């Protein structure tokens, strides 16, 4: 299990294009990967799940992965989200 806590800094939140890139990046890993926000959880490999989470500006999100390539997945996906997020704390 690998996870990272992030805060969304982009003024548009996580909108369709970056969300689609994120889903495509997540699908390259075998681990189960989720984004959590406010106690809700979305499958990182499903665009509709990610958009359904409606990640807004200033939201705190957790990126979590579980599986054989969990660490690599978190590193790659954090890099994918880098233009839109900052670290918590």
């Amino acid at each position, binding site marked *: 299990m690998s996870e990272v806590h992030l805060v969304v800094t982009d003024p548009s939140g996580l909108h*369709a*294009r970056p969300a*689609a890139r994120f*889903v*495509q990046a997540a*699908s390259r890993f075998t681990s189960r990967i989720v984004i959590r926000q406010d106690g809700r959880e979305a499958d990182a*490999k*499903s*665009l*509709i799940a990610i*958009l*359904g989470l*409606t990640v*807004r500006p200033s939201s705190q999100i957790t990126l979590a992965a579980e599986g054989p390539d969990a660490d690599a997945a978190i590193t790659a996906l954090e890099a994918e989200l880098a233009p839109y997020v900052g670290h918590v704390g």
Partner: protein
Amino acid sequence: MGLILISHSGPLVDGLRDMVVQVAGDDVPVATAGGTEDGRLGTSAPRISAAIRSALDAGADDALVLLDLGSAALSLEVALEDFDEAQRARVHVSEAPLVEGAILAAVQASIGASIDDVIAAAQGAASMAKIPRA
């Protein structure tokens, strides 16, 4: 798999294809059939048939059709008569709203999801909230 976008308007599906490619990338082939043969608003069974054929001939195992409204479904039905049973089995018709369905389906297809998952992603667009609720 390939996507086929059908609308009464050519510019509408051309613009939608641009959006799909920008969001999902260009790995998923997108064929369009918008407007009538003489460039008016409407749907054309021959144009739909040609779009389906181009998707199947391009090597797609499956093709997902998204359409706008009204007679688009009737023209599609006529167009499908041009195909044999084996070909028709590869053509899936979605009830999803055209714009959201196309984008969600294309992204799911771009990650190599199964046709069933792609169909489900498109269908999910029908109940997706447009305006985030606090």
